[in-house]
């Protein structure tokens, strides 16, 4: 058996490595979507590698979150920094899920539209960025220093909404997500 702290280290390394890889790929795709650089081969590799890395990181994310909570000093979210870590990781999870679902539904045709390709690469980059910020906050919590210290991020401040507000956002979000998924599914089945 290994402790939850050790397991957390393993899973976070998987998550951070995968999201960092995905971030590089989405950066290449973002550059291509703005026409600053064009290479069909680079586009194909970045597309496949980026989405695969993002998916793998996403699979490891729940393990990292649960082992992180379990290995915290009081086994719950007892510090503002841990709460911020939870928020950041869940934002990254939401973005990554959306990116993967969009790619699955739209397929390669996604890159034929400039708007869609820009949204896709921006969302992928944002997912990677939020996950790396989560990892940075973890370093701040365990070692007292982080590579993002120069940004002076307000980790000690939490933006906490009332439960009812969270509930409304959750319900409205789920409803909107279902509509968006149906629209995407409908569109993706039309043959041009």
């Amino acid at each position, binding site marked *: 058996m290994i402790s939850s702290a050790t397991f957390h280290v393993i899973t976070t390394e998987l998550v951070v490595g995968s999201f960092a890889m995905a971030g590089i790929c989405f950066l290449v795709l973002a550059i291509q979507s703005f026409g600053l650089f064009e290479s069909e081969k680079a586009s194909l590799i970045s597309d496949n590698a980026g989405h695969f890395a993002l998916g793998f990181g996403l699979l490891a994310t729940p393990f990292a979150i649960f082992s992180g909570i379990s290995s915290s000093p*009081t086994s*719950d*979210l*007892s*510090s*503002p920094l841990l*709460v911020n870590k*939870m*928020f950041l990781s*869940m*934002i990254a*999870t*939401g*973005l990554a*899920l*959306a*990116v993967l*679902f*969009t790619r699955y539904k*739209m397929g390669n045709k996604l890159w034929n*539209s400039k*708007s*869609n390709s820009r*949204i*896709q690469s921006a*969302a992928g980059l944002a997912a990677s960025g939020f996950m790396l910020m989560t990892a940075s906050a973890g370093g701040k919590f*365990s*070692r*007292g*220093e982080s*590579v993002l210290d120069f940004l002076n991020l307000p980790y000690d401040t939490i933006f*906490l*909404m*009332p*439960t009812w507000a*969270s*509930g409304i*956002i*959750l319900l409205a*979000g*789920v409803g*909107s*997500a279902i*509509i*968006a*998924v149906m*629209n*995407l599914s409908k*569109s993706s089945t*039309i043959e*041009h």
Partner: protein
Amino acid sequence: MLSLTSLGGANPGGVGDGDFDMQCGGACHGDASQNQTSPALLELSLEGDAYLGLPVSITASVSGIQFSSSDAIGLFLLTDVTGHSDLPEDGGWEVISDVNGGDNNYVELEGSSFEEVYTISWIVKPTVLESSTFYLSIHHGGQNTPYFAISSGLDIDVLPVPDNLPRLSSEYSPIISRDLGQQTTISVSTSDVDQLAIEWRLVDQPSSSVNATLIDNNSWEFELPPALQPSIIEWRAVMDGDGPTQTTPWFRIAAQEPALAVNQLQIYLQSFAFCVFFLTLVLTLQSRYWNDQEDLAEELDQTSLLPHQEDSVGSTPPLPEGGLPNGWTMEQWKWYGHEYLEDEK
């Protein structure tokens, strides 16, 4: 990024107080083989006698430290130097409190003076009637190099408790932390004590006395004033009874910000709300622009405006009044009848 990191193996930010073996599992200094010998002078001493089950203070004196850029050092109280199973707990001792208001064998201190002598203490309690040897170990950085040193051993013989010795009860363990602004009532359990006097002080300040109230047989209570900012208060008990008067070590109570008290469900719910919000945001944008692209494609598709081939070629022209002209078949009329009608006009 690489150029921003130091080339040494030390971790200048430290790892925080905790219960760590001598090499702290590699957490403090990345690779123990990179350690240089610290020039620090280390010394341990015992305040009074160590009786089984009674707290006693072990004082560490440290001087001549080369501080790293973060001005932090790490100090270990150990009962072995093998690098494993060397915590006081492994030697049959319980750490009751440390200098930072915790109950750890490893503490981190901040300082900057090479000349200054730093004195800290741990309150420990022997749980077995055995002799032990304590060591003080130091980890610190300097010039991008991790430094390490260990003191000579301090042998401590644990004595059985004499009859009628005024003392704290062996099960008693003082509280070591409290929230800011909290009036603190401290309970004290004793044995063979007729009178109990309490002294308290802020660290390195003159002490004051408070009266302890006898609650019932061998149970006392006294109150400490609330703290308005994070600080440490020390207190000790002077116990009179049939035996010789005894004074406990200075126990420490750290006043700290109350732990974050929020509904965990609220945090989890908001986390999922954030997740769904950003998921929906991206899906909606993608869906919107995808549909716009389809509308544009439909607008650009003008094939419907072209005359249908079937209208011009495929439909059968109306037969003339006399019926099908001589020599024509219906099949020929279907394809060339409109030309015949044009010629007739």
